[in-house]
């Protein structure tokens, strides 16, 4: 298998080159004269990541901000894009949906992920049980699309149902339902898909955090007569607070950005659109990059409260230390 060898070589060279760069940085940091060592350390440790992010994220972000004030041909048009955004008929619904998504998805994913992580902690077969909830994260997007079609699929009354939920409805004598068409609850059915995916993330991170809570503390609480709920409430939760904030934050941002679930399942029709989906559609479908960029800026505004909250948490941590 010649081509495998060639690819292996490429990977090997890349890793070696990377190791050489990191090694060089470490060497420089170590050899720096004592007076400047702290400065050199900061620069050495931060520079590789900083350069990459400035090039690949900061610069595009700046460009996007400019683009938001231009029209489809790239000529500046003031706040036209924002006027358009808030005057189109579905604007309110899109914003409302985005808010529902960003409230429900992080909350439900974290609650389910945490509960599951606690319940299976140290249980027999923990690895397998974890893998089951983790699996949705690992499945390809094409696969996930088919999976949920198999759940929500609709056939008219009297025709053999192919979707699990409608088969259950018919089995108990109800009429089949168009889960993805009937607003407003169809947004909830889309959210369930995202929760299904993100719970695995919350579970893995929180499970690791739970295992970091010193076992003697839990034991001590138990000896003091705390019941399992009290142990959880008073020992585990405070012990994993940092991770909880991280999980909630990460999932919130992921939810604000997610568009492919909406795009592939309803294409934003039937009052299910969210800001990220509109952004994608405008920038890449409708050939209106300016409008797309304006919507991206709105997403950034929506994430600001989370940024501020994290900044506060961070400050508190610093003060504690």
């Amino acid at each position, binding site marked *: 298998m010649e*081509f495998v060898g060639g690819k292996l070589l*490429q990977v090997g060279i890349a890793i070696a080159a*990377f190791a050489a760069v990191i090694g060089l940085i470490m060497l420089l*940091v*170590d050899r720096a004269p004592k007076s400047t*060592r702290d400065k050199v*350390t*900061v620069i050495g*440790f931060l520079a590789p*990541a900083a350069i*990459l*992010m400035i090039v*690949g*994220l900061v*610069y595009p*972000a700046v460009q996007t901000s400019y683009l938001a004030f231009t029209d489809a041909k790239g000529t500046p048009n003031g706040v036209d894009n924002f006027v358009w955004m808030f005057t189109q008929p579905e604007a309110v619904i899109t914003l409302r949906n985005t808010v529902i998504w960003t409230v429900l998805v992080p909350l439900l994913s974290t609650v389910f992920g945490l*509960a*599951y992580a606690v319940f299976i*902690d*140290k*249980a027999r077969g923990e*690895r397998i049980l974890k*893998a*089951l909830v983790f*699996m949705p994260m*690992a499945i*390809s997007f*094409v*696969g996930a699309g088919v999976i949920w079609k*198999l759940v929500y699929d609709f056939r008219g009354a009297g025709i053999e149902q*192919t979707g*699990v939920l409608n*088969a259950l409805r018919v089995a108990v004598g109800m009429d089949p339902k168009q889960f993805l068409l009937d607003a407003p609850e169809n947004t909830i059915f889309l959210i369930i898909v995202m929760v*299904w995916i993100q719970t695995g*993330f919350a579970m*893995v*991170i929180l499970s690791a955090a739970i*295992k970091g*809570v010193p*076992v003697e*503390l839990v*034991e*001590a*609480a138990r*000896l*003091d007569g705390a019941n399992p709920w009290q142990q959880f409430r008073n020992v585990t939760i*405070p012990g994993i*607070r940092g*991770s909880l904030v*991280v999980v909630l934050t*990460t999932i919130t941002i992921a939810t*604000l950005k997610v568009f492919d679930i909406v795009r592939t399942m309803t294409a934003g029709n039937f009052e299910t659109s969210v800001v990220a989906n509109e*952004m994608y559609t405008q920038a*890449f479908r409708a050939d209106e990059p300016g409008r*797309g960029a304006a919507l*991206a800026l709105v*997403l*950034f505004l929506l994430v600001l409260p989370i940024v501020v909250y994290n900044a506060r948490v961070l*400050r508190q941590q610093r003060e504690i*230390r």
Partner: protein
Amino acid sequence: MTATPARDEADKALVGLPLGEKGIHAADEPIMRRVKTKLTSPFATAAALIIAAIWTVPTFGLFVQSFRPAAKQVGPRSDGWWNAFFDGQFTFKNYVDATAAAGSQSPNLSQYLINSTAIVIPVTLFVLVLASMAAYIFAWGNFRGRHAMFIFVFALQIVPLQMALIPLLQLFTQVLQLPAGSYTQLWIAHTIFGLPLGIFLLHNFISEIPGEVIEAARVDGAGHTTIFWRIILPLSVPALASLAIFQFLWVWNDLLVALVFSGGTPDVAPITQRLAEISGTRGARDYLNPAAAFVSIIIPLGVFFALQRYFVRGLLAGGLKG
């Protein structure tokens, strides 16, 4: 006394509880076993099994579907996947078709799997090392503005990938003149997109490592590099393992970045690119999607199982002798 991350906060929270003996050693096996018997209640077990079932049934449906003949999967003659257990019609044909060559466009699935692996392994490594270095400095470095800089990096997570593609591609092809159709562009692009979240996740963990540990090392004359490699990284193994598995997955399941930077040739294209095309230009063979999805999930699941033991150990085994 030795401390473990999150301990300080936990200690504080425990103030309200009259605590007995506090200094029980973490790796004290018999105690762990006793805790185990106490916490695994029948209710918890039942609840866990219910969640596991609800989360698995949809995927299980896809799994069953992947073994059903085309006519049973799509179209008016199809029926629910659960009928497979009654009609007994199972076939391996979908897997054979999905993995077989469909002409020069798709030499075979294994080449795409190798490509995916060759893309994902260096990226995961790069992100882990670079993000932990940055996270360490943000948590324990001493310079003005690190707080604000960290928040800024964290906020970069919101930059939509789609907006970053064009400037980055411009840079790669016109300024850096990176060869098209090699892995290099993909490695760099994925690393960039993985950094903000990586730094954020690791910072949370690394900043909770007790200050005394680092202070003690400093007193012993250890420099930043020694502290980073000998103390921070070994202590962070559970967090590194978590980040590794997720970084692995994001890159493994990515299609967008691959489309832009791989040049699309079978030499470098990852498995997702093949998956997206397997059903044909107009979806005539979409009954192959379930089988193809399960071929693609094998490696990530294997990695998950391989990394699982690090989620548990690490801190406890990291061996802080006080």
